[in-house]
C-alpha cells in the first residue's frame, strides 16, 4: 500500500469525494474541540493573552511534517506525487494581508467561521455571508484583478529547493522553530497574565 492514494488509483473520483467529506468532518471536529469555533479565542492571538491557536496550528504543522517525512522514508508515501500549490508570491502576500485584516476585524478565518456557524454562533454566520459575498465580488471583478491573481509566479517551490538545504535539515529546523515558538508563546502568555493581574 502506498500513498497518495488518489493519485495511485486506490479509489476513483466519486470515492474521493466521500474521503474528502470524512476528512473535512474530522478537520472541523478537531478545530471546534481546539477552541477554533470561538472568535474570542481566535482573536486572543492578536492580544497575546492566549496563544493556544498558534500552538495548535504549529503542532498540526509539525505533526503532519514528521508524519509525511517518516511515511516517505518508510516508502509508504511518494513525496513527488503530493500536490504542491504553486507560489505566486505577490498574489499570496496581497491575499495574506487581506485575509489577516479580515481575521482581525471579523474574528474568524473562512474555515473557523464555518465551524462557528455549525455550532450555532450568529457572528460566524454573518462572517460566512461576508466571505460568500467577498468570493462573489472577487469572481465578478476577476477581469480587473486578473493580473494580480498570478503576479509573482515562481512555480511550485519547496523550502529545501529555495534554501538549497537537505530535506532532513529543514525538518529539524522547523521542529526547532516550533518548540522555540511554544516556549516563547508560553512566556508571552505568562507576561500578559502578570500584567493583567497587576492592573
Amino acid at each position, binding site marked *: 500500500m502506498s500513498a497518495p492514494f488518489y*493519485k495511485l488509483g486506490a479509489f476513483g473520483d466519486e470515492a474521493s469525494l466521500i474521503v474528502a467529506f470524512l476528512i473535512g468532518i474530522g478537520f472541523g471536529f478537531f478545530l471546534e474541540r481546539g477552541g477554533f469555533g470561538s472568535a474570542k479565542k481566535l482573536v486572543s492571538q492578536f492580544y497575546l493573552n492566549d496563544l493556544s491557536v498558534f500552538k495548535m496550528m504549529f503542532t498540526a504543522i509539525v505533526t503532519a511534517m*514528521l508524519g509525511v*517525512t517518516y511515511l516517505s522514508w518508510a516508502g509508504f508515501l511518494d513525496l513527488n*506525487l503530493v500536490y504542491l500549490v504553486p507560489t505566486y508570491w505577490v498574489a499570496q502576500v496581497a491575499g495574506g494581508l487581506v485575509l489577516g485584516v479580515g481575521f482581525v476585524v471579523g474574528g474568524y478565518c473562512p474555515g473557523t467561521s464555518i465551524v462557528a456557524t455549525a455550532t450555532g454562533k450568529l457572528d460566524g454566520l454573518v462572517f460566512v455571508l461576508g466571505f460568500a459575498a467577498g468570493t462573489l465580488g472577487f469572481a465578478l471583478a476577476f477581469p480587473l484583478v486578473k493580473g494580480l491573481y498570478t503576479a509573482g509566479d515562481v512555480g511550485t517551490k519547496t523550502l529545501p529547493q529555495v534554501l538549497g538545504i537537505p530535506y532532513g535539515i529543514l525538518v529539524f529546523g522547523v*521542529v526547532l522553530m516550533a518548540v522555540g515558538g511554544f516556549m516563547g508563546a508560553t512566556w508571552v502568555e505568562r507576561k500578559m497574565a502578570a500584567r493583567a493581574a497587576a492592573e
Partner: protein
Amino acid sequence: MLSLSKLSLNQKLGVVALALGALAVFANVAPGHTVKVNAKELLTGVARAEDHVTPQELAAWIIEGRADYRLVDIRDEEAFAEYHIPTAENVPLAAVTDGALGRTDKLVLYGDGGIHAAQAWMVLRGRGYTRVYTLLEGLDAWKDEVLFPVMPESPTAEQQARFERAVQVAKFFGGQPRAAAAPGAEPMALPVTAAAPAVAPPTLPAGAGSGPKKKREGC
C-alpha cells in the same frame, strides 16, 4: 537530573518531536535518480505496440483539440525554437525526471528520431510514470508522413482518397504534399512554428490543442 515525570504531556510531546526532527536529518527522503523496471511488463507492452502513437494518430489528436495528454518535445531549446509540433512543450531529455512531468499524466514524447524518446520512455517508466508513449520514429516520421506526405505513384482509388486526406492534414499543419522523394533532393522547408494554421481543420474544428488541464487539486 531531570525527571521524566516532572514534564507535562506537552513537554514530553515536544521532546518527541525534537527527537524525530533530529532523526529526520539522517532520513533519506530526497528523490533519488535510480530506476527500477519490471522487464517483462515493459517488453510485453512494447511487443503489443502499447508504447507509442503514430504520427497520424497524433495529428488527429491535435486537430480534434484533445487535451487529455501532454505532448513533450525532448530535444534541446534551440531545436524546439526552430520547429516543434504544435501544442508541444519543451522538456529536454536530461530534465524529464526533474518534476515538470506528472507521473499520472498521459505523455507523448518525441525527439528527432525514435531513439532518444524511447530512452526517455524507459527511464520514465522505470520511475513509475505509467502513461508514457513515444511518437513512433519521432519528428522524422512526423515530417515524412504528416507534413510532407508523398504522392503515391499510380494510386488506387483508396490510396488516392487516403492521400487527399493526408494533404488536408498536411496543410493544416503548414506542410504540403510532395512527389516521391528523389535521392539527394532538397529538404522541404519547415513551416514557421508561430504561424497559425492557414486552412480550416480537415476534420473536426481544432480546439486550443492541449490547453491547460483541468486541476482537480488544491484548496
